[in-house]
């Protein structure tokens, strides 16, 4: 038994944990814990890139992994801690639009849809790692659910970033030698995104007094 045979299985295991982290994002209430889940998920993405890049050896995937580590595991948490008022992180979010068990069941249904669509896709063309695509699609949908369920600014934003993670998890499998964009996008877009979100969150906190952006509903067709 050589190490080669373990690579697909270990990658599959990482994908398994990845989809778990997507579910965890739906479940955890504390905002700080949500950030923790996101960091863990980004680590898994980086790990998957390293494992897939190991054989056959690919600099591209290693670069994706390293950039993910730098931007999502180090820079983004630092930015969010630095610019968003600290008391938010210990806050428990109790004002979700639907309760957690219901959200979990919806997430489950979405995951099923993602899995089924993913399996249709992976049979279409040869592929480095099929699980990445399946899990990526499922996690993408669950991320969208996080966005819909959460009302606090930081978890909503982490939902977007989780979707981005999911898209790139699929991406490293389907387009391992994608020209430039993956590295560039993760390296610059994502920290910029986090920076702007942090500034905006701080502004909302200052003007409105909380960061429950889901409660903001002044803009509509017929104001009362």
């Amino acid at each position, binding site marked *: 038994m050589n190490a080669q045979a373990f690579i697909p299985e*270990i990658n599959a295991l990482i994908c*398994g*944990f990845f989809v*778990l982290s997507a579910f965890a994002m739906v479940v955890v209430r504390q905002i700080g814990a949500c950030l923790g889940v996101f960091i863990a998920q980004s680590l898994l993405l980086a790990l998957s890139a390293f494992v897939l890049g190991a054989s056959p050896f690919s600099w591209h995937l290693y670069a994706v992994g390293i950039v993910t580590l730098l931007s999502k595991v180090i820079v983004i948490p630092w930015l969010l801690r630095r610019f968003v008022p600290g008391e938010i992180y210990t806050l428990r979010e109790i004002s979700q639009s639907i309760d*957690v068990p219901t959200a979990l069941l919806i997430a*489950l249904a979405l*995951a*099923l849809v993602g899995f089924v669509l993913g399996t249709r896709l992976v049979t279409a063309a040869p592929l480095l790692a099929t699980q990445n695509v399946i899990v990526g699609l499922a996690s993408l949908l669950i991320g969208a659910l996080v966005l819909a369920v959460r009302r606090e600014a930081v978890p909503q934003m982490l939902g977007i970033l989780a979707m981005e993670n999911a898209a790139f998890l699929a991406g490293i499998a389907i387009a391992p030698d994608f020209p430039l964009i993956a590295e560039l996008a993760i390296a610059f877009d994502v920290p910029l995104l986090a920076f702007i979100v942090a500034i905006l969150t701080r502004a909302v906190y200052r003007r409105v007094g909380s960061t429950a952006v889901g409660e903001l509903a002044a803009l509509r067709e017929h104001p009362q």
Partner: protein
Amino acid sequence: MSIATTFGLNLLQLAFVVGLAPLFSGIAGRWRENIQGKRGPSIWQPYRDLRKLFAKEDRRSESATWIARFAPYAVCLSPMLVTLLIPVLTDFPLFGAFAGDMLAAGFILGIGGFFLTLAAVDTGVPYGAMGASRTRMVGFLAEPVLIVILFAVSFVANSTIPYIVQQQWVHPPAHFFSPAHVLVLVAFFMLIIAETGRLPVDNPLGHFELAMIEESRVLDFSGRSFALLKWGSAMKMVVLAVVFVNVLFAPWGLATTPVLQALAQAIIAVFIKIVVLLAVLVVVETSFSKLRLFRIAEYLGGAFVVAVTAMIAAVLSP
């Protein structure tokens, strides 16, 4: 291999579970105290408790019927029956191997719980009824998790007979890392915690009747009945632990031939595996606080989601 040998080995397995169950609960109890910075009781304390309880008078409330008398035996017998179905020490099928599958094992364990629930109501103590209803709530939520785990297992192994399942996850060894396997492990671990009434679902050491789930059912038992209940729950714990370590997690170290040396090695290996699992359980238990009653639904909902994901992964894995 003669029937007599396999039957004898089955009895050996039974002896292992029945004899060592109090020791395992003693070890867990001691470590729990150690982690909290206390010295804790001796690991042999459960044996002393049992001896003391067997010697005491068995008092029962006047309104109680035969159910209250019978329940402790049911609680004690059900894990013993399950022991006959699962690979405790050997990895080749024994006398009772094909008498029932994992679903049957779940149901047999359920019979014990069923009688205990009835008995708790039967004694007429309000706490007993309250505990009974709460246990049923946890049970209702835990049942689908078990069923889905079994689905996932059967998709992979094409069987739910424990002796057959245990071989599937490690051949070839790379399969050990397959997502379905890991997710099943996570879900089953969460299930063990809920089924055996441990933190964060229930606090087995709690002394506040209103907050109890499992323990409040046995408040009105004494003497031999109470001893049997304690022993039975310790055995249930060991049986679940054996299913976890031998069938699902690490089916290594079991005896492959019915010779004495292999069996002795197996006993040591299984003992170590269970002790390691206990250590993990104790760490989990001491690092979480108890969930509010209605959050248990979320906890088991999480376990359910993990189990379903495992099943999907098992079905869809190429």
